[in-house]
């Protein structure tokens, strides 16, 4: 066991933090730029998780954690999670041979923005609840249905779409995963801003024809792949959350030191000091669980992996809400305004809490799994 970063990891962290440093300007503009995306590519960030044989850096979850935490601190809006972590994960674990290498290369170069279109209108957080239909034809499949709340679905070039090729809604078997060109005939998308200002879209597939080669992984058996990548995504999201919480705590502490009421900095009031202490505790506990999720996201046992990641999401969801709400409360009115950057962080934290299932959803998962291992060691 070893908590130290290697020299390489330290360098990575410093570089990313510099690139992602929060600026006043950024909090106001939720848009992201292809320009900065190219900078990420130049730094190698977009190649980070891919195997060296596929042209990547072959780095692992710890490096992803480092990047995501810095992105959280800087409120980075670029589609890193969607494209590199999630689509990247589907590519790494789902695609074979030449296809994998080709897609990895296009992501790494910054040419390809990809996202995962999975959530459906009625599904809530249940990953197996897939109704979008995949009808088999001689040449391949015809996809028909609607996906919603697709992060960065507005501008993504490539969509990974989950669909039901056999079986009933809710069944674990019968889900297939497809790689679909966003410009394909029959794909329409309706862009809107998500609650935290990041871009999203509803994506409609009207009899979209895809070749047999568009299937990712095993047809009808995509759920384990989806679960695996979702767990990796949650671990990365936990790291982003820690960055967001960290920044909110820092903002709050410095506001407490500068804002004066009743003739002294409000940070001199003990009740507010204790609140700040509770925020700090919540942050440290969240940080520990993000580390835990990072460590467990690649665990070979899917049950252990999922339970651990869910446990982290519980902590992140709760502590993130606590820190966000208290940060707004301690700032008072100013914390409620668009002009001050705290609000954007608070909204991002709220969105993170909802993405891939809220704290209660994951607590239920942990409970159903019989809890966390209490064995020592």
């Amino acid at each position, binding site marked *: 066991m070893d908590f130290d970063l290697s020299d390489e990891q330290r360098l990575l962290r410093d570089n990313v933090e510099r690139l992602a440093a929060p600026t006043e300007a950024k909090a106001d503009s939720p848009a992201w730029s292809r320009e900065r995306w190219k900078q990420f590519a130049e730094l190698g960030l977009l190649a980070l998780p891919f195997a060296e044989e596929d042209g990547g850096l072959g780095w692992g979850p710890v490096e992803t954690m480092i990047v995501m935490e810095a992105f959280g601190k800087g409120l980075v809006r670029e589609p890193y999670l969607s494209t590199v972590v999630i689509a990247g994960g589907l590519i790494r674990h789902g695609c074979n041979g030449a296809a994998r290498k080709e897609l990895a290369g296009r992501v790494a170069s910054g040419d390809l923005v990809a996202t995962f279109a999975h959530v459906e209108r009625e599904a809530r*957080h249940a990953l197996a609840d897939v109704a979008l239909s995949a009808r088999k034809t001689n040449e391949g499949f015809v996809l028909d249905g609607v996906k919603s709340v697709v992060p960065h679905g507005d501008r993504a070039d490539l969509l990974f779409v989950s669909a039901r090729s056999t079986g009933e809604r809710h069944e674990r078997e019968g889900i297939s995963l497809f790689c679909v060109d966003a410009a394909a005939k029959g794909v329409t998308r309706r862009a*809107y801003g998500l609650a935290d200002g990041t871009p999203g879209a509803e994506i409609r597939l009207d009899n979209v024809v895809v070749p047999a080669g568009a299937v990712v992984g095993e047809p009808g058996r995509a759920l384990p792949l989806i679960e695996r990548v979702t767990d990796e995504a949650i671990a990365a999201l936990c790291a982003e959350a820690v960055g967001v919480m960290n920044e909110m705590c820092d903002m709050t502490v410095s506001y407490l030191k500068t804002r004066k009421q*009743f003739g002294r900095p409000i940070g001199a009031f003990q009740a507010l000091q204790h609140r700040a202490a509770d925020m700090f505790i919540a942050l440290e506990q969240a940080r520990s669980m993000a580390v835990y999720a990072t460590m467990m996201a690649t665990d070979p046992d899917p049950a252990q992996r999922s339970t651990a990641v869910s446990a982290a999401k519980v902590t992140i969801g709760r502590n993130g809400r606590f820190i966000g709400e208290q940060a707004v409360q301690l700032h008072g009115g100013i914390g*409620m305004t*668009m002009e001050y950057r705290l609000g954007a962080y608070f909204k991002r934290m709220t969105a993170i809490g*909802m993405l891939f299932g809220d704290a209660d959803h994951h607590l239920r998962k942990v409970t159903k799994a019989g809890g966390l291992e209490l064995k020592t060691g």
Partner: protein
Amino acid sequence: MDLRFTPEEQNFRQEVRSFIAGNLDKETHASMLAGHRPSKEQIVAWQRVLNKKGWATVDWPAEFGGTGWNIIKRHIFREEVQAYPAPEPLAFGVYMVGPVIITFGTEDQKRKFLPRIANLDDWWCQGFSEPGSGSDLASLKAAARRDGDHYIVNGQKTWTTYAQYADWIFCLVRTDPQASKPQEGISFLLIDMKSPGVSLRPIVTVDGGREINEVFFDEVKVPVDNLVGVENRGWDCAKFLLSNERVNTARIGATKERLRRLKKLAAEVQESGRPLIEDQSFAEKLADLEIELKALEITQLRVLANEHKNGKGKPDPASSVLKLRGTELQQRITELTLQAAGPHGLVGENLDAPPGHNEDEIAPEWMRLAAPTYFNTRKVTIYGGSNEIQRNIIAKQILGL
């Protein structure tokens, strides 16, 4: 001691409910049910309906247009309006400046302002907070100097809700910068928003809505007749007003309505084929809220009964309990509503978007409003004296610490 509503009280409740049902504009009702704030026009129209019936200012003394109802009836009336839901009479006029004018104002002020407040001919807004004076209200800097028959006002107010609609603003201003205690040099002034030198800057809140504003005063001339009460004694008016506000911010009727709606929605939303409300953990959270709300409702009745017994104008510091718990419950419901919305709660929307607009196919309106409403409702534990200030009040004024 008998804690049941009497048959007469129950009949009265029915009468109020029927009146609202028969007279409230359907569109206003539908829009509020969906979770939208009523618009200016909706608020004005409804208050005029109420005023025509004699119900716009039920808490005022009968001589000024009050109904003379006892405390229980007034409670029932307010609860019914909130729970229907219908717009409430504009608080800044009816609950804030109106009672201040009645208690501290001159006969002229009463004649001039009260009927127009009741009929919402004048839209009022509140000029208390300043950028440097939030919780520490008495440190305010906006100043008025006497110049013949006028005060000349300079300074800035902030967090002024609906100033963009307002005809008048009631302000705390410093009239004696030399006073020995900061509370002592403050006066309570009524200022016409059309006066030269008054300007606004909107503040957009995190939910994307435009509710609040900064208000600037640049050499604004205010007739001395618009002073309420005694010069430099405006703090008395402020304390009186803030204590009234605490009772009002509990909004138990409105919370009941939101909770009832949430329960209905949680029965409709399904996960893996099972309604959310059948999840024990979620159902227990709802039951918990209902219990907390019941406790607060009875606490409110006890506070009101106590105020009634101790005579009016004597603010009960226990009203801080109502403000504290009432606002916490309001927030809690928005959190659970957001949770009920699930992933589609991410389909955020501007709270000021027109109701029922065409995003409906992406997600139902209530889901789209869940996140902005959650964001917006963070304000309730901040305004009207933050909940930290309320705890100070309880500790000092009730517990003597």
